[in-house]
C-alpha cells in the first residue's frame, strides 16, 4: 500500500517529462547505469558484427600445408530449375515495337525474336535467325528474307511472311516518337508516314496509301521482301533490333489490335506471343516471372533448349541487399555497381594488374566474369558556336572555334587518373566515335594523350588571337547533369587542369538538373558538356552519323560543327555494301573527326557479370540488352 501511494500520489515530477530522455536520467541508481552500459555494449557489438563484410562469418579453409589446395565444399544448388536475377531497372514496356531501354530489352529478347540476330558472342556478325537466309538486291534497295518453316508463336499461331509483314507495319503505324520505330525509317515510305503520324495528322487512308507503295511484299508463305528508300548498309543490323521482332498477329488482334499512333496497352504489359525461348507469365511491381517455352524451335543450329524452367527478375534497389541475397544463394545473378565491387573482388589486383580475382572467402559462391567491353561511349562536347540562352544569339567569346583550344582541352584531360580513380578502370579509352568490338573499329588509330605542357603552349598561342591572357582572363562553364558522379568528377578534373595552367581561361563547373541541362543543350548554350551515347542498332552508322554528320547528326547541331566533306563520307559509308570499302571509309571518318578535335573521347565502359558459381552457360554479347537465359543452367 505504501509503495502504491508513493507511486500514485507523489510521483517524481521529473519522471514524467514526455520524450525528453536526458531529463529522465536524473537520480537514477547505479544499477540503472549498469543496465545502460550493458545496452550500449550490446548495441556496439551488434553494430560491429553488422559492419563486417557480408562474407566474414564463413571461415575460409586454411591452406593445407602441402601445396595441394583442398577442393572447397560445393554449396548445394538452390532452386535448381530457376534463375533469379536481382537488378535495379524495371521495363518501361514489354512491347518490342515501343520499348527503348535495356530492362525491357532484356525481357523482350528472351520472348520475341527477329529475322536476323547476333552470332553468339559476336556483336559484329549478324546472322539469319528467324530467317533461313536473306539476299540483298544488287542496288541495295531490297532485302529478301527466306523464313524458317515450322516455327510457332507461343499462342500456337504459325510463324510466316504474314506475321513478319504484320509486325513491321505495326511498329511503323504505332510510331512512338520516343520509341525505336524511327530505325525502320529506311523502309520505303516509312519515314514519311511516321513524320505525318508524329505531326498528328495521319489517318488510316495515309497508311493504306503507304502500303500501296509496297514497302513490304509477301512473295509466298515463307518469303518476304522489304523495299527501302535508299541503299542502307546497316539494314540487317536494324532487323536484329527488337523493334523488328515478329509478334503473333492473331494474338495482337485478339488483344486490342493496332491503333494509329497509339500504344497497345495490353502489349505494353504482356509478352506471351513471340517465338522465343521464354514467355512472360506475370509482371507484378518489381517482379517479372518468365517460364520456359517447351516448344522452342532451338535457334539456327537447333541446339538452344532452355534448361531452366523459370526466370525471375526482381527489382531490388539496395546494393547491400542484392549482395546478401547473392551470397546466401537466394539470387543467382545480381547487379553490383562499381562502388560495391570491392566487396567481391581484390580491387588492388584489378587496379594494378587488370585481373579480376574473386576474394577467396567468397570464391566458392561467387563468380565475377569479365571485363567485357560495352558499346557505350562517354565523351566531352566542345561547342564551336555557343549561343546565349535568353537572347538566342551567338555569344562574343567563342574559344572552341579555334582548333588549338579544342586540342589543348584534349591534352588537358588526365585520362589515366580518371580511369583509375573515377571509373576504377572499368573502361577503356576510345580512339574515336566507333567503340572497340564494333565493325569499323580500327585499333591502329591512336587515342588522345594527356600533356599539360602542350596544352599550355596551345592555349597561350590561341589566347593572343582570341583575346584572353593571364592578365585578362575569360571564364567558361562546364555543365553536367547533377547526380552523375562520374561526369561531375570528370568535369572537375578537366577544370582544375585548365585552371592550373594560368593561361587566362577560368573554368567553372556547374551542375544542372536534367530538364535544365537539356533546355540549355537545345539552346546550344552549353560551352562544354559531358554526355554518353549508347547504341540503338549495332552498326557504326549509329555512332558516326549522330556524332559527325553536320545535318543529320544528334550532336554536331548542338556544337556548331558541320563539315560538308565529312557529311559526304558519312552518306557514302551508309550506302557502301562492300564491308572492306566501308571499313576504309569509316577509318577516314574517324581520323577526320579526331584530327579536328571535335570531341574528347573519354571512356568506353567495360562491364562485368556477377553471378553464383553454379550458373553455367552464360556468355556476353555487347549487343544484348541483358542476360540471354536460354543457354543458362544450374549445377
Amino acid at each position: 500500500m505504501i509503495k502504491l501511494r508513493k507511486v500514485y500520489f507523489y510521483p517524481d515530477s521529473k519522471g514524467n517529462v514526455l520524450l525528453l530522455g536526458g531529463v529522465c536520467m536524473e537520480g537514477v541508481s547505479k544499477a540503472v547505469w549498469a543496465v545502460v552500459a550493458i545496452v550500449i555494449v550490446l548495441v556496439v557489438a551488434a553494430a560491429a558484427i553488422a559492419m563486417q563484410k557480408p562474407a566474414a562469418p564463413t571461415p575460409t579453409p586454411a591452406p593445407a600445408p602441402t601445396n595441394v589446395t583442398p577442393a572447397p565444399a560445393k554449396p548445394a544448388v538452390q532452386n535448381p530449375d530457376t534463375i533469379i536475377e536481382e537488378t535495379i531497372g524495371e521495363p518501361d514496356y514489354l512491347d518490342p515495337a515501343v520499348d527503348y531501354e535495356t530492362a525491357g530489352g532484356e525481357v523482350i529478347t528472351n520472348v520475341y525474336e527477329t529475322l536476323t540476330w547476333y552470332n553468339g558472342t559476336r556483336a559484329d556478325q549478324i546472322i539469319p535467325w528467324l530467317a533461313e537466309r536473306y539476299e540483298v538486291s544488287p542496288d541495295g534497295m531490297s532485302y529478301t528474307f527466306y523464313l524458317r518453316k515450322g516455327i510457332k508463336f507461343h499462342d500456337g499461331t504459325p510463324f510466316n511472311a504474314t506475321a513478319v509483314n504484320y509486325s513491321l507495319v505495326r511498329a511503323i503505324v504505332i510510331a512512338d516518337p520516343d520509341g525505336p520505330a524511327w530505325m525502320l525509317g529506311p523502309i520505303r515510305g516509312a519515314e514519311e508516314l511516321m513524320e505525318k503520324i508524329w505531326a498528328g495528322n495521319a489517318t488510316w487512308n495515309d497508311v493504306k496509301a503507304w502500303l500501296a507503295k509496297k514497302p513490304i511484299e509477301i512473295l509466298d508463305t515463307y518469303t518476304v521482301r522489304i523495299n527501302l528508300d535508299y541503299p542502307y548498309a546497316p539494314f540487317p543490323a536494324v532487323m536484329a533490333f527488337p523493334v523488328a521482332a515478329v509478334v503473333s498477329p492473331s494474338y495482337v488482334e485478339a488483344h486490342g489490335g493496332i491503333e494509329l499512333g497509339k500504344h497497345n496497352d495490353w502489349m505494353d504489359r504482356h509478352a506471351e506471343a513471340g517465338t522465343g525461348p521464354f514467355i512472360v507469365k506475370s509482371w507484378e511491381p518489381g517482379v517479372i516471372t518468365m517460364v520456359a517455352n517447351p516448344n522452342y524451335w532451338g535457334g539456327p543450329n537447333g541446339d538452344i533448349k532452355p534448361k531452366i524452367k523459370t526466370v525471375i527478375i526482381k527489382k531490388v534497389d539496395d546494393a547491400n541487399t542484392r549482395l546478401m541475397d547473392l551470397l546466401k544463394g537466394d539470387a543467382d545473378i545480381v547487379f553490383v555497381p562499381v562502388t560495391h565491387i570491392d566487396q567481391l573482388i581484390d580491387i588492388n589486383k584489378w587496379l594494378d594488374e587488370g585481373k579480376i580475382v574473386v576474394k577467396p572467402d567468397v570464391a566458392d559462391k561467387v563468380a565475377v566474369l569479365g571485363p567485357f567491353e560495352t558499346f557505350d561511349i562517354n565523351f566531352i562536347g566542345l561547342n564551336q558556336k555557343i549561343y546565349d540562352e535568353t537572347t538566342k544569339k551567338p555569344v562574343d567569346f567563342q574559344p572552341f572555334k579555334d582548333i588549338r583550344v579544342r586540342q589543348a582541352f584534349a591534352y588537358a584531360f588526365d585520362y589515366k587518373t580518371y580511369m583509375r580513380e573515377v571509373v576504377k578502370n572499368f573502361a577503356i579509352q576510345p580512339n574515336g566515335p566507333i567503340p572497340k568490338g564494333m565493325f569499323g573499329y580500327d585499333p591502329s588509330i591512336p587515342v588522345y594523350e594527356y600533356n599539360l605542357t602542350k596544352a599550355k603552349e596551345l592555349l597561350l598561342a590561341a589566347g593572343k588571337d582570341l583575346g584572353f591572357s593571364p592578365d585578362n582572363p575569360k571564364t567558361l562553364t562546364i555543365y553536367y547533369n547533377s547526380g552523375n558522379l562520374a561526369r561531375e568528377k570528370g568535369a572537375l578534373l578537366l577544370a582544375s587542369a585548365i585552371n592550373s595552367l594560368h593561361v587566362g581561361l577560368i573554368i567553372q563547373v556547374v551542375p544542372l538538373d536534367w530538364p535544365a541541362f537539356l533546355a540549355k543543350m537545345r539552346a546550344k548554350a552549353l560551352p562544354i558538356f559531358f554526355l554518353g551515347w549508347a547504341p540503338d542498332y549495332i552498326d557504326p552508322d549509329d555512332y558516326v552519323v549522330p556524332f559527325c554528320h553536320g545535318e543529320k547528326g544528334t550532336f554536331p547541331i548542338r556544337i556548331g560543327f558541320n563539315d560538308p566533306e565529312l557529311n559526304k563520307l558519312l552518306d557514302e559509308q551508309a550506302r557502301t555494301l562492300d564491308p572492306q570499302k566501308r571499313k576504309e571509309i569509316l577509318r577516314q571518318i574517324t581520323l577526320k573527326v579526331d584530327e579536328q578535335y571535335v570531341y574528347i573521347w573519354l571512356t568506353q565502359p567495360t562491364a562485368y557479370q556477377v553471378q553464383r558459381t553454379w550458373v553455367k552457360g552464360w556468355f556476353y554479347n555487347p549487343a544484348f540488352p541483358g542476360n540471354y537465359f536460354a543457354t543458362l543452367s544450374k549445377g
Partner: protein
Amino acid sequence: MKLYEYAIRRTLLLVPVLIGVTILTFYLSRIVLNPLGAYVTERTPPELIPAIEKKLGLDKPFYVQYAYYLRDLVTMDWGWSKVAHMPVLEALMYRFPATVELAVTAFLITIALGIPLGILSALKNNTLIDHIIRIIALTGISIPVFWLGLTLQYTFSYWFKTNGLPSLPSSGRVDPVLLQAHPVNRITGLMILDSLIQGNFIVALDAISHIILPSITLAFLDIGTITRVVRSSMLEVLRQDYITTARAYGLPRRIVIYKYALKNAMIPVATISGLMFGGLLGGAVITETIFAFPGMGQLTVMAITFNDSNTILAFTVLACFIYVFVNLAVDIIYAWLDPRIKY
C-alpha cells in the same frame, strides 16, 4: 450535433483541404520541377519537344493547366506514371495494398508492444523495470531506421541462413518461385489476406515471413514513442482526484487502472497513433528500399528522383485523403473514449 453529422461535416471539409493541397502541390510541381522532365530522355529528338509540350498542355497558362488537372483528377484520369510504367491510378492500386499490409502489421506490433510497455512503465514508475523500458523506448526512438533494417536483415536473413539456422527472407513481398507453384488470385491486393481467403496457407506463411523484418523495423521507432506517451499520460491520469476517489471507495486496483484510468489515458495515445498510422500508410521509404518491398514509399521516391509530376501529385492527394480520414477516425475514437466530448 450528432456524431454522424460531425463526420459528414468533416468529410465535406475535405473538399477545401484537397483543393488547397492540389493548388499548392500543382503550383510547386510546375515551379520547382520542369514537368517535361518526366517525358524527355537523353534520346528524345529536340525537334519533338514542342509537340510533347503541346500534347501535355504545357504551353497553356498555369490556371488552364490546373483546370485540366482538376478535371482529370475528378474523372479519375490521373495520367501516366513514368516511373511505374503504367497509369498512375493502376500503379497506386498495385502499390497501396502492399503499403497497407506493411503499415497494418507494423501498427499492430507497435500497439501490441507499445501500450503494455507504457502501462507497465507507469505502474512501476521509477523502478528498475521503468528505467529499462524507458531506455528501450529511447533506443527505439534514436536508432536510425536504415541501420536497424540492415542489421535485422543481416542477422536474421543472412547470418542465420549461412549458419544453417532457420532464417527469414531478406527482400520482396513473397517468394516468386513459391507463388509460381501456388498461384494466388488478386482479390484485395493484400497478399496475406488473399492467400488466406483462398486457403493457400503456404503462400500466406511465406508472405508473413516476408513482412516480419520490415514491419519490425518500422514498428521499432513507433514503439518507443507510444511507450513514452502511454507512460506519461497514464501517470497524469493516475494523479487525478477521481482515481483517488475510486481507490478510496475500495475498488480493486485492477478495476481502477484498466477500467477508469486506462481509457482516459488513451486520449493522447489515440492522437499520436492516428498520426503514426497515417504516416505508415504514406509509405516507408527506407524500409521499403532495404527490403525491396513494392509499396508507395518506393514509388514516390522514384517519382521524385525522376521528376515524375503525375505520380507525385497523385501521391500527395492520396496522402492528404489518408490523413484527413485518419484524423476523422481519431476524433470519433475520442468521443468513444471520453463521453464528455461533444461535437
